[in-house]
């Protein structure tokens, strides 16, 4: 059965890339290179080192932004989940942020912080933070009440209930919030490179478009999508590995 699944995956990839190749050969548009042209451009960039340099540039705001969002987001989320007062004060902000198209803030951020790294880190943060905060807060609020009661009845102090029961119980959901935050952070990082100043991968995309080198442009876009998808899948695997039995084990199973 594993063979069937693998075979179908390969078949489906073959069909899609084949369709891309054929569409590029017709061609459906002057701006639509074939699959092999794009892959050739990708390998060329990989070997001359320009792709690596571009990613070093692109991943900088992403990494900084994600780190800030993770620390701040989890801290705020824990606080919101634990304190009714804080929940009342801060939840609405993050609920609105979650629903709102925050990308619209980019022109404002550029005016306030210029076109440098700061603005880009900000963009990543505003995209990534709401889901991290809301997931953390929700997970803390949804700690099974029998677990906290159990802690109390065995004389756990307030701090022990938080560190030994609430935080471990919430950690799978916090982690998946982090993964969703990183996914949104990728969107923000690329958006900021396309909108604010073309650097890194955004620069390759913008520049190759301006000189009509579409194969290189498609290759760069292909690579960033592959990178993001692989990284997020990797995180999902880690999540499954670490928290396999964690959501189960209650009486209601």
């Amino acid at each position, binding site marked *: 059965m594993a063979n069937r699944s693998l075979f179908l995956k390969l078949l489906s990839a073959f069909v899609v890339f084949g369709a891309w190749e054929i569409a590029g050969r017709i061609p459906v548009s002057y701006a639509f290179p074939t699959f092999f042209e794009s892959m050739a451009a990708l390998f060329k960039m990989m070997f001359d080192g320009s792709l690596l340099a571009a990613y070093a540039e692109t991943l900088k705001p992403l990494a900084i932004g994600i780190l800030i969002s993770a620390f701040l987001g989890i801290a705020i989320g824990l606080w919101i989940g634990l304190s009714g007062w804080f929940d009342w004060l801060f939840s609405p902000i993050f609920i609105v942020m979650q629903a709102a198209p925050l990308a619209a803030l980019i022109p404002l951020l550029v005016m306030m912080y210029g076109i440098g790294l700061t603005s880009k880190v900000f963009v990543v943060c505003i995209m990534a933070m709401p889901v991290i905060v809301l997931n953390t807060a929700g997970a803390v609020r949804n700690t099974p009440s*029998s677990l906290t009661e159990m*802690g109390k009845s065995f*004389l756990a102090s307030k701090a022990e209930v938080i560190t030994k029961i609430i935080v471990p119980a919430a950690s799978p959901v916090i982690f998946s919030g982090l993964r969703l935050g990183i996914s949104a952070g990728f969107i923000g990082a690329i958006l900021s490179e396309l909108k604010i100043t073309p650097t890194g991968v955004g620069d390759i995309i913008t520049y190759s478009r301006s000189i009509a080198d579409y194969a290189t442009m498609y290759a760069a876009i292909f690579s960033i999508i592959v990178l993001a998808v692989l990284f997020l899948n990797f995180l999902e695997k880690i999540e499954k590995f670490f928290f396999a039995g964690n959501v189960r*084990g209650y009486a209601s199973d």
Partner: protein
Amino acid sequence: MLQTDNPVQDLPAGHGHSVASSNSSANAVSVRNVSKNYGTVEALKDLSLEFPKGQLTSLLGPSGCGKTTLLKIIAGLLEPTSGEIEVDGRSVDGPGPDRAFVFQDFALLPWASVLRNVSFGLELRGVAKSEREDIAAKYIADVGLAGFEKSYPHELSGGMRQRVGLARALSVDSDVLLMDEPFSAVDEQTRRKFQEDLLSLVANENKTFIFVTHSIEEAVYVSDQIAILLPRPSRVSDIIRPSGLREKDSRSIRRDPEYLDIVDEIWESLRSYVE
């Protein structure tokens, strides 16, 4: 609320019906005029009840009669609106080392092994790791889970999980064990085995058991004393003390005429309250 030496250690363990005296020192837990209101809803009204030391008392009643509320008040997890709880002659107003709780849904930490789950109560009391794991290992063996120390809750069946919950409650060596419908989430056959094990536990450990159940047969089978609670407003309507069942072999109790009579009698008094 430090645990002190129990001054009344010389009671005959197990055979509880012999100490049905009104002397308060023979009562491990006393509930005095306890009321509990949720907003305008009266969950418990002026309820008083004595729990004799070394015996098993069941709280039995239809759903909504407040039996779990009462148990959680005794545990110190809920605060009564008025009235007081005495454990071993001392008034208590929160959880204490003198009481241990067994939860209906087991309340095991899904991320912790059986060993850590069982030793968790001791961990919270600051017992050193090696010492608490020794104690836990002993109780894991006592409840019949030797060899599963490194397993995780999701790898165990419902019955085994509740054995872990029981071992955790036993390992802190409290005088009073509070059990909230502990067998309701396990299948019928496992449940019968549990009931038999519970009888020998009551006989062998010098502990007081308070046991919430909604099964009449279960209550009559395991109890020294059955408190029937009726709803709206919650009150103790009757206290039944089976007199001759504890001397019987655990396998013949269900055929005993006294057992059958009591089950019938309780059902007659409860049937009008069941929708």
